[in-house]
C-alpha cells in the first residue's frame, strides 16, 4: 500500500470527506481502466466508477486494514462489473461508431487508431471472464500473480496458465488486424 493511502486510511474509513476524495483521486484512473477493459463499453465507465466508490464509501467501516486496499477496490469493481453484466448482456460495440474530435488535424489517422483500439478492446471483452480478468490485472494494472492469487482466491500457477491462454486467444483473434505482424512474418 502507498504511503499516501496509509496516511489517509483512518480518515476515509471514519467518513472524512476530504480523505475519501483524495482516495478517489488516487484510484479513479486505475478503476476506470479496469472497468473499461472488463465491460468493453466506454460510455458506462463513468457510472460504474461512481458506483465503485459509492460502494467503497458505504462499506468503509467494515474494511479491515491488511495492506490490501487496492485488492479490496478491485474486488468491488469486479462485483460492480458482474452486477452490470447480469443486468444487461454485453453489447458489442459497433465498428462504425467512430467519434472524430473537431481538433484532430488528421481525422483518417485518428479514426484508424481508434478503430484498431476498438477492435482490440472488443477482442478483450469477448474473452471468457476468468481469462479477461487475469489479462487486465496483469497487463493494464501491473498486478503480479501472487497478489492476484490473494485477490481472486485462485492459485498463482492457475492464473499464469490463464494469462498465457488469454494471450494465445488474443493473438489468434487479432492476427487479421495486425498488418505489421503479418508483414514481419512474411
Amino acid at each position, binding site marked *: 500500500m502507498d504511503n499516501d493511502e496509509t496516511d489517509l486510511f483512518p480518515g476515509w474509513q471514519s467518513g472524512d*470527506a476530504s480523505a*475519501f*476524495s483524495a482516495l*478517489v483521486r488516487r484510484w*479513479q*484512473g486505475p*478503476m*476506470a*481502466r479496469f472497468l*473499461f*477493459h472488463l465491460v468493453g463499453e*466506454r460510455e458506462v*465507465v*463513468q457510472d460504474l*466508477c*461512481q458506483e465503485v*466508490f*459509492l460502494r467503497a*464509501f*458505504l462499506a468503509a467501516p467494515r474494511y479491515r486494514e491488511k495492506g490490501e486496499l487496492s485488492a479490496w477496490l478491485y474486488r468491488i469493481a469486479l462485483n460492480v462489473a458482474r452486477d452490470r453484466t447480469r443486468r444487461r448482456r454485453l453489447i458489442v460495440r459497433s465498428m462504425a461508431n467512430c467519434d472524430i474530435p473537431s481538433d484532430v488535424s488528421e481525422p483518417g489517422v485518428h479514426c484508424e*487508431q481508434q478503430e*484498431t*483500439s476498438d477492435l*482490440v*478492446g472488443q477482442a*478483450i471483452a469477448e474473452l471468457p471472464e476468468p481469462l479477461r480478468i487475469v489479462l487486465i490485472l*496483469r*497487463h*493494464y494494472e501491473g498486478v*503480479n500473480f501472487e497478489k492476484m492469487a490473494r485477490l481472486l482466491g485462485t492459485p498463482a500457477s492457475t492464473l499464469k496458465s490463464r*494469462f*498465457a491462454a488469454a*494471450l494465445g486467444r*488474443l*493473438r489468434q483473434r*487479432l*492476427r487479421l488486424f*495486425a498488418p*505489421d*505482424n503479418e508483414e*514481419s*512474418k512474411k
Partner: protein
Amino acid sequence: MNCTHVRGRLSDLLYEELSSGEIEQVKEHLTQCPACKSEYDSLQDLRRMLDGVRAPTVSVNTPGMFRQALEIHSRRARRWRRAAVALAGLAATVLAVILFRLEIRAGSNQVVIRWGSSTSGIETVTNPKSEPSEHHTAEASYVPASEAELQPLRGLIHALDASMDQLSREVENRDQRQQHNIVRLQEQVTQLRVMFQRQMATYLADSSKKGENR
C-alpha cells in the same frame, strides 16, 4: 533449452518475470531459432496493440456520491424504522390476542370479532356485504359471569386470605418473642444494678474501716 521450454517462457520474458540467468538462456535460444523468434515478435506486437487501447478518463463526482450515500443511509434508516414499528405492532396484536382472548372469524356475510370467553365478554358482529337496510351496526351484549368461571377467582381470594392470616400470625409470634426478650433483658439489668449496689456498699464499708484504722 529446447523450443517447448522456451515457448512456455516467452510471456514471462515479455513481462519481465524471468531471472537474469533465464533471460540470457531464452534470448540465446531466440537468436538461433527463427520459429521461436517469430513467436516472440508476435507476442511483442500483441503487447503493443494492447498498450494502444486507450481507456476513457473519468472524474468521479464526489459531492454527488456523498449525497447518494446520504440518501442510501436515510433510506436504510427509514426501512429499519418501518420494520421496527411493524414488529412492535405485531407484538402488540399478539399480546392483545393472548390477553383478551381475541377471536376474529369471517363467516357467511359476517365478520365476528369477540374477546373474552365464549360465554362472557363483548361480541361485535358486522355484516359488510348486506344491504344498508339490513346492515347490523356494532351490536354488543353483556352476559354475566357463570358460577364455574367465578370459582377460580374465589379460590384465589381464599388462598390470599389464608396467606394473609399466616402472615399476621407470624408477625404476632415475632412480636411475642421480641417482648419476651425485652423482659429478660430488663430482669438482667435489674440484677446487675443490685449486684453493683452491693459491691459499692462493700467497697465503701471497706474504705471507711481503713480510714478509722489510720
